[in-house]
């Protein structure tokens, strides 16, 4: 009974923390998928006086490709209503058009930085970032992701506090047993074997529970997420990596808390 009580006392903060972490992973996954989808459609258009030489990065974001827009095509689109003289003049005066593809979708702040960086290049006449097209939804998703990350941080801190309290209570309750084992040559780590087993058991149990929740949520994601965003998410989201992260976190957090307290206990 006592063991079961200890087991659930350790599991509860861990489960709450891992649930929060799972939610963060889901949102991150959705945001990343959305980013990957929109980045394929998104490009910055620049107009230059002379042919443009290549650039590697803009505002710290790698430039994936610079695609020149065919001048002939542009002229062809407008030549119907123009005289031959005007066409020949247009051919001489028409600037160069380029589409810049980025490796990742920029935030509003980075977009502004990119604009400023491009403006420093002397032969660029005009820049069109099409910032309003995707930015509202993207910014909203980033905001949600950040809020969930902050919440996760708070829950993580609270869980560590609760775990350390539980470990302290265990040490207090088993103080006599620990001292008897130490009198017979057992180390503090040896005498803490039962609590280590409880911690690892709770970590395993919590990670299974949190992973199951993640699987259920991902499988029914169409019921939770708005259709507008849903259309941008691949139908099958891979979860192996996320489940691995949950398991690693479920073991690392209580282990660090335990060994931290053990060091503190030993120093005392």
């Amino acid at each position, binding site marked *: 009974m006592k063991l079961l009580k200890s087991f659930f006392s350790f599991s509860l903060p861990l489960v709450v923390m891992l649930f929060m972490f799972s939610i963060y992973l889901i949102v991150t996954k959705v945001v990343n998928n959305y980013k990957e989808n929109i980045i394929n459609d998104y490009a910055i258009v620049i107009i230059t006086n002379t042919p443009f030489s290549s650039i590697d990065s803009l505002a710290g974001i790698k430039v994936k490709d610079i695609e020149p827009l065919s001048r002939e095509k542009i002229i062809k689109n407008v030549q119907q209503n123009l005289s031959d003289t005007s066409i020949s003049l247009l051919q001489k005066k028409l600037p160069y058009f380029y589409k810049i593809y980025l490796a990742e979708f920029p935030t509003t702040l980075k977009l502004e930085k990119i604009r400023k960086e491009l403006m420093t290049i002397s032969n660029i006449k005009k820049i069109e970032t099409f910032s309003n097209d995707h930015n509202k939804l993207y910014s909203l998703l980033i905001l949600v992701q950040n809020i969930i990350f902050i919440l996760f941080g708070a829950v993580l801190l609270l869980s560590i506090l609760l775990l350390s309290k539980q470990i302290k209570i265990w040490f207090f309750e088993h103080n*006599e*047993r620990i001292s*008897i*084992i*130490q*009198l*017979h*040559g*057992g*180390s503090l780590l*040896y005498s803490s074997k039962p609590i280590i087993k409880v911690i690892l058991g709770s970590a395993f149990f919590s990670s299974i529970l949190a992973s199951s929740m993640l699987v259920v949520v991902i499988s029914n994601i169409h019921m939770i997420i708005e259709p507008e965003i849903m259309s941008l998410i691949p139908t099958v989201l891979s979860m192996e990596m996320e489940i691995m992260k949950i398991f690693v976190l479920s073991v690392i957090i209580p282990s660090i808390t335990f060994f931290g307290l053990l060091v503190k206990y*030993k120093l005392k």
Partner: protein
Amino acid sequence: MILAKNLTLSYDKRKNIIENANFLIKEREFIFISGSSGSGKSTLLKSFYGDLSINNGNLFVNKHDLTKKDDSKLLSLRKDLGIVFQDYKLIQDYTIEENIMLPLKVHNYADDVSRAQVKKLLKHVKLSHKIGAYPAELSGGEQQRVAVARALAHNPSVILADEPTGNLDDYSSDMIWTLLKNANEHLGITIVVVTHRIPTDLGIKYRRFNIEEGVVYEAS
């Protein structure tokens, strides 16, 4: 072997409990440490198993230098000792078998070897029928016999006993003295017992140290 050179012990450095003690306890000896209540008998014994830091002087127990406190050395020293306390110090949620097995587990004995050793010891202390019982189900005398069995489990070279018969009736006390005497006579274990009641008919050669106002001296 226990060697003390100008050994001084105190709890708070204001008043010395033991002052400038000099003595040598050789292998296979049976030693009593006696004195009035509060004279420092248990304090001296505590220093033998490293539960009390040394203020001054030197103390060697089985070649372990206890002058400077070192946790890793302390654990290896305690693996060499068997300790018996007045209040038995058995782990209440361990069975008798698990309690006796404790030093064997600490020494990484194989499970089957440990179980065989526990069976042998329980037979020796006449408690074979209590192997699966918990300490609370045993009388004081029986618990102390379990404590002696636990102290003997890993064949230590020294057994330190702090008032081992302090809580026991005459019958149980006699049994404990017999067990300690046999351990000394037949297994060659050095026995150091703190007591204010030395048995009159132990039937074994022993030395007695007395403590009076912090001074340790050999009594005739």
